[in-house]
């Protein structure tokens, strides 16, 4: 049985990485949100699967959080924000998308190389999961860095965090996983609220640094 089991887990993890790439590819906000919802959904599946094969019921909670909170609530909230703040639907990327994709591939390669150095006594599943999780995290960071738009940066942060959850659940018998995921959900909620409160339209730095620094007298 385990051959099949492992393959499924493997498949889910890999598809997470794939979806991260799709995110990198997106040019329009709504599409990006949808892909993120998908990302979260796949994560939920993978967590559930882990829960099943580790016989760790508490992981189902994490899966639930992922499903409800990340796959549904947050995307919807962000939709609202986009509408209310009338944010451009176009995403301005820093380097072109192609460049970003290349960088992404390099990152995946990097993470695989790193994890292959891990001696095999750590069980195979954990190792591969780990490689994928690392890839997802790095891709999420890449998304944050390469997008000028606040919402897409939030999305990047959230997919990074998905990578974390993937890693955490992949680790057998890791305690406090649920707590972590809850903590992170709160964190993300903070971010979203922050965006909403500060009316951060285009980017984090639309709180115009120049003006602020003049005001601080740091810059003449």
């Amino acid at each position, binding site marked *: 049985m385990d051959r099949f089991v492992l393959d499924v887990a493997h498949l889910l993890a890999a598809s997470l990485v794939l979806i991260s790439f799709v995110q990198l590819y997106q040019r329009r906000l709504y599409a990006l949100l949808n892909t993120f919802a998908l990302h979260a959904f796949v994560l939920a599946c993978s967590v559930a699967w882990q829960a099943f094969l580790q016989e760790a019921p508490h992981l189902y909670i994490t899966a639930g959080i992922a499903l409800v909170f990340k796959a549904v609530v947050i995307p919807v909230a962000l939709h609202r924000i986009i509408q209310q703040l009338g944010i451009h639907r176009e995403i301005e990327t820093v380097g072109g998308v192609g460049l970003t994709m290349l960088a992404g591939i390099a990152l995946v390669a990097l993470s695989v190389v790193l994890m292959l150095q891990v001696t095999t006594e750590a069980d195979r599943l954990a190792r591969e999961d780990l490689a994928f999780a690392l890839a997802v995290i790095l891709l999420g960071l890449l998304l*944050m860095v390469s997008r000028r738009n606040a919402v897409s940066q939030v999305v990047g942060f959230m997919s990074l965090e998905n990578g974390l959850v993937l890693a955490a659940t992949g680790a057998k018998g890791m305690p406090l996983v649920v707590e972590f995921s809850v903590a992170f959900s709160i964190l993300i909620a903070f971010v979203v609220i922050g965006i909403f409160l500060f009316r951060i339209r285009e980017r984090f730095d639309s709180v115009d640094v120049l003006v602020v620094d003049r005001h601080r007298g740091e810059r003449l």
Partner: protein
Amino acid sequence: MYPVIVILWSVAALFCTAVLAVGIARRPTASTIVYGTSLVAASIALAAAFAHFGDASPASLALPLGLPWLGAHFRLDALSALFLAVVNLGGAGASLYALGYGAHEPLPGRVLPFFPAFLGGMNLVVLADDAFTFLLCWEFMSLTSWALVMAHHRIAQNRQAGYVYLVMAGFGTLALLLAFGMLAGNDGAYGFAAMRQSVHTPLVNTLVLALVLIGVGSKAGIVPLHAWLPLAHPAAPSHVSALMSGVMTKVAVYAFIRFAFDLLGGSDWWQSMTVLVFGGATAVLGVLYALMQHDLKRLLAYHTVENIGIIYIGLGLALAFQANGMNAAAALALTAALFHVINHSLFKSLLFFGAGAVLTSTGERDMERLGGLIRRMPYTSFAFLVGCVAISALPPLNGFASEWLTFQAILQSPELPQWGLKLIVPAVGGVLALSAALAAACFVKAFGITFLGRPRSPAAEEACDVDRFSLTAMFGLAGLCLLAGILPGVVIDALAPATLSMVGERMPEQIGVAWLSIVPVAESRSSYNGLLVFLFVAFSASLAVFVIHRFASRELRRAPAWDCGFPEPSTRTQYTAGGFAQPIRRVFGTLVFQSSERIEMPPPGDLRPARLQVQLRDLIWDVLYMPLAGFVNAAASWLDRFQFLTIRRYLGLVFLTLVSLLMMLAVWL
């Protein structure tokens, strides 16, 4: 053992006084109390130091302070006893002087607490016997003196001086710190005792000596590290200037001797050559800069630079001789250097006291606005004159005795095997003679313009002599200058233990020599008898006076100055400080200062006065310090952009760091 404790107690007393002073600074009696206690404490320490002069056996003591696993070690050997005597003599003099002078201090709260602390700090530096204690006290000394320099902080010039001073001091301390790190080695053996035992590779030796030359030089004022000295020393109140110039620089010299002779135990001949070169450059540049000054205190400060140069020439010679195993000659050179240390501490304090007296009674430091004070302040001017003669190395005063010894040491150079030294030592001798002659010129100017001639400002006309305490201090030092000058043998014998402990050899016993003259090597080579010279001069002068007044005329008529028949009433026609130095500036200035004169001669019929403008540039600043400051400035402005990035960019930085670190892992492992 016993003297160490006494000295430590008096230091403790000084620190307590400092703390007390914070509380009582506002009281009118404060300055009397503080300076009185410092005077007593310094005198006690002085007595203790003298008490230890006799026995060569070093006494040491450890307190459970400082580095926890090491403790604070103090050690009193011949060398430290000698320098303790110098420090506390200067300290006692300054305190005595300040008993009167301190009363004029507008901001006692900014002087009283730091003065005793400064004094105590210097004592501790000389006593310290482990790296940590040494540097702690060393930097504490800088810190307190910085506070004293900042005493009159409302004058922007002083603030700048204090700033430059502290940065240079920090720089020097870090250099010494590195030197200690080298000596202490991997397992941190910070005790001097351990450092003495350990043997060092030539590389370490060189490195340490270079670092020490930098670190100590920045405190002593070796060119090109002297930049802060002429700014900071004049900025402080005069009795503090006296301490800084007369004593603190000597503490730096002590540090050099301690490192070069004691901890390192000698050096290579080429290293000694660098010391010689730096000493010579310092001596001549210092006096040339001094000649160009017309601020009395700054002039004195530059002379400190010169004298430090002379001392370092002596030390360099000692190193050179020691490197070739000529310990007797080394002893002679070292004695000369130490003798000059004592002398300079005497007459430089005296001169700064005089400058302080002038400052209090006229409120002027600028010589161009002084003049004729010899009639208004006879006592001060007499003491100052003695100081001038002494520092100009003129017999029969003490300055000459030490420089004469240095020359004698230089005359030993032919025995040196290395050609480099053979050729450079006579040149250094020439430089020494040059700086001595220039010093004489400079003090003709200093005394002549300040005290002689006719008053150049109303302030100078209303001047009057200063209080008893100040005069006592000045005359005491003047007397010591004379004594050391006419009885050099006594001093030389007093220095013997120190040289014995440093270079393992001493100069021949001088007390025994007939007529109290000094014979550095052998009667046949050279000898000098300050006492007889003094007596002869005194005798023949009084003889002449007697004969003439007895047999020839004695009547006297006062008349207007003749001045070739065109006496000019205006005091503006006198020679000014600048004018006096002009010929020498013409001779050396173009070379050293890039001095350039511009003459504006208005056309005939134009009533504008003709103008002569002279520009002097300080090469050291232009070549060394300005570029450095420029670099820091540029780097600061370039990096400043990192304050103003956007959050995404900051995230980018984090991301890049992460990726590069991971790459490193992936590649290396």
